[in-house]
């Protein structure tokens, strides 16, 4: 499959010399600078660093939401740089889950419908049953018919968690999952996140400023000026 990256059987995500440059009025700007890393199946990894260090861009590159200027990413055995946009989307549908700082629930859909969405995109017929089970696991069984605007921030993030885990993804990417939550709610969501990581053996890659959250991860990667320190 690939030549230079050591893809041991337990490696689920690997990056090699990953670089992302953007054009700005001041000239070319390197946001992610030759980053290489390898993450094992079931591992939990936190990426921390100051604002503008390139954490979110690295996350986007690893998840295939953005394309690198150079270098490559191997996710669940597939070289993302060799896939087109639709190919990466299909891979995400099958193997990847997301949790965002601002939850990103579809406002037009109920909690249940939001959780059903990735299952429907993957063509699963049992979307409804799967979604109900996932909501049950996050303790929102009695909120299935509520729209996002009718839910508190913590409840919204729990719906987002249910949505992220409902497809049993190989890797879960989380961008500041507790950033918009108060300490107590944040702690509860964090607990849920790691419980699910344990029970489903899902790999977690998260970007955070939250030291408490980062400390619960098995590994912490620190980014500075686009590079891993």
């Amino acid at each position, binding site marked *: 499959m690939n030549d230079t990256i050591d893809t041991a059987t337990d490696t689920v995500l690997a990056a090699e010399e990953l670089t992302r440059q953007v054009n700005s009025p001041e000239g070319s700007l390197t946001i992610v600078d030759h980053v290489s890393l390898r993450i094992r199946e079931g591992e939990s990894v936190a990426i921390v660093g100051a604002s503008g260090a390139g954490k*979110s861009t690295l*996350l*986007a590159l690893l*998840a*295939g*939401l*953005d394309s690198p200027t150079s270098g490559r990413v191997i996710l669940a055995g597939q070289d993302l740089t060799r896939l087109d*946009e*639709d190919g990466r*989307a*299909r*891979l*995400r*549908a*099958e193997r*990847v889950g*997301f949790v*965002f700082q*601002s939850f*990103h629930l*579809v*406002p*037009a*859909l*109920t909690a249940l*419908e939001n959780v059903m*969405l*990735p299952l*429907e*995109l*993957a*063509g699963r017929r049992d979307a409804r049953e799967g979604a109900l089970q996932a909501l049950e696991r996050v303790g929102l069984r009695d909120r299935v018919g509520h729209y996002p*605007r009718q839910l508190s921030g913590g409840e919204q993030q729990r719906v987002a968690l249910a*949505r992220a885990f409902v497809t049993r993804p190989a890797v879960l990417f989380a*961008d500041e999952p507790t950033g918009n939550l108060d300490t107590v709610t944040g702690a509860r969501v964090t607990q849920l996140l790691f419980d699910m990581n344990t029970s489903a053996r899902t790999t977690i890659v998260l970007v955070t400023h939250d030291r408490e959250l980062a400390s619960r991860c098995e590994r912490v990667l620190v980014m500075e000026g686009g590079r891993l320190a």
Partner: protein
Amino acid sequence: MRALQLAMRMLGREWRSGELGILLLALTVAVAALTGVGFLANRISQAVDMQATEVLAADLRLESPSPLSDDYLAEARRQGLRTASVTTVLSVVFRDEVSQLSNIRAASDGYPLRGKVMVASEPFGIGQPVDGGPPAGEAWPDSRLVAALGAKLGDRLSIGAGSFRITRVLMARPDQGGTFADLAPSILINDADLAATQLLGPGSRARFAQLFAGGRDGVGAFKAWLESSRQRSERLLDVSDASPQIKNALDRAGSFLSLASLVAVLLCSIAVAMAARRYVQRHLDSVALLKTLGATRGLTLAVSLLQLLVVAIGAALLGSVIGFATHEWLLRALKELLQAQLPPADLAPVGLGFLAAIAVLGGFALPPLLQLSRVPAIRVLRRDVGPPPPLVWLAFGPAVIAVVLLIWWVTRDLKIFAGFVVGLAAFIALLSFAGVLLVRAASALRGTVGVSWRYGIANLSRRRGESVIQIVAFGLGIMVLLMLAVVRNDLLMDWRRSLPPDLPNVFFINIPPADRDPFVDFLQDSGARTSRVLPMIRARLTQLNGEAVDQIEFASPRGEDFAQREQNITWQDDLGDDNRVIAGRWWSVEDRGKALVSVSTEVQEALGLQIGDRLTFDVAGEPYEAAVASVRKVKWDSFQPNFFLVFAPGLLDDTVGTWMTSAFFERQEGRTIAELVRRFPSVSVFDLDELLTQVRSMIDKAVLAVQSVFLFTLLAGLVVLLAAVQATRDERRYESAMLRTLGASRATVTRGVLAEFAMLGLLSGLLAAAGASVAGWLLARFVLGIEYGFDPRVWLLGLVGGATLVAVAGWAATRSVLRQPPITTLRAG
């Protein structure tokens, strides 16, 4: 299949959120306007058509000086048409010893196929419609004949070998026409009695007509068959030949109604473009999220397209129903005025509505949707990332194609199409340019005005692109509405000018030279308004530039007709107001007695004449040769005495046979006319009232159609304006919340919104007034062929109306936004 399932499942959910509702509303309103105008225009134009056919008493009329083959009637009946025949023969009618040369008209059962015969119980009375003509054995003489014979109802008349009882006085026939070929009075009898009169024989001066009527398609097919089967000497007439006035009215109404529906099409496009923009803006995050969760670009596009398709179908159905209901309601409201049996609606406008909905969506919603599908997944992490900028042809190409196709579809006339497309393109370019200028100028004003205006103007200049788009949209909307007003006024004034209420309604011909002065005195004494008095001489064209006319092959059948028939000619010093010399020159005092003739455009075109051509006429056995000195455009609908051929004074003085004039009588003055007929028995009287009533009612109907369509378009424009304002609701909700959080009162925010929209409306109105004036002038001058009158009210209306309309519409549409407590908005993010 997955896309369809997902689209349908999401459609239900999105519908609940109300986002698709706005698009559905915009499209429904647009389709409703389009189909409403379509139904209305379609039915009124059919009604006008139908009324026009009444002038022929049929849809098609075949005329000939020799008997017509019965095969035509048989074939028509075989093709499912209704038929009738009318034979006209010139003969003498007797009441005892008193006689009068008359046109005997023998009409078969079923006559008239269109329109009604009007009868009264006394001469010059008020006519009442009846079904059909007289039964066998009865005769209906016209007022002149009754007066000339001194007859009354119940008297017996002899015509040839037949005897008839007068049961009614004929006031009008639908097909009496506006020409003066019939100098003698008329009498209507049943066709079954014609043989008994033994009038038809060798040497009899008869004309034969066959009448056909039926459905539009059937008549069209039969007309094509008849065109190829008829003899050359047989003349075929249809609606377009019925009367020049009617043809003009029809053409003008047609042009105007087409333009009115075009406006609906354009407003439709603007509304959909704005709604689609809003749809895309609201869906950028959703699509990015779908992609993040694994949806392919194709899937997201298919989901959006399928949803829009469902919306389009729904809107087309709903819009058609509303359009139909609206036009029915409008027709019902106008019923009293219409006074006509309207033909049933045909379903063509529904098809137009469906196809237009798809075309408009394809042109205006597809490009932004394609853009939507290109939004990158990374937007879920970085809100500032949008779709890549579109290719220019992709962004505007489909819209331009859709607009051009729709305009062509509606106009089907190269001249109108080209004028409209060029005008539209120029106007959009001008408005865009002006919009950019405004946005630049706005920042200069910001320091000089109060907080509300500063906020409003700041909004305009901050949403640079959006402001320009809105100025173009509003400007275009206001312009078409103003343009309709401009053209409508011109049309109405033109029609009113052509048909003043005190138009001459009675013509007098055959006034002997000796009776001329006493006759004119009598008219003046009786209070009637008279027009010019002209000599009338019968003449036959014999040679053209020295060549005998019967040797010449004329290109047009009208030329041949003209060369064969005896003509009425006159001579005259002054060119009347209703005549305009378009080639050559009118004569001066020095030309008196010179052999010069002035021809009307009809004669010039029929015979292919040029200035200087020599025409030879046989006047009472004497040849007269005259050179063509001028060509005149005659306004025939002035109903003043007018002639195709006018000679210079002094040449024909000795040949004068009789004189003619026209006058306006109040309808109640029937007795004066009866008295006149008794005092001047040799003078022939033509009562034009019936004809005029017919023509005026038709023109009134056309005006009414124009006005109601105009009203409909105005309403459509307003609703679309509201839909356009809705496009910026989301931003406004957020801004209002922010401003109020910072301490602005609701009144301040409202004034800001009003200021912004008033400013937008003011500039749109200014440009719209300029655009409407220019476009109105172009339309009036080159398309409708009427005079353009500059109207300063258009500018006032454009500026004040534009500012008020947009400000009020903007305020109405954003009211709910401004009312919302700030916390609701800010919490929603």
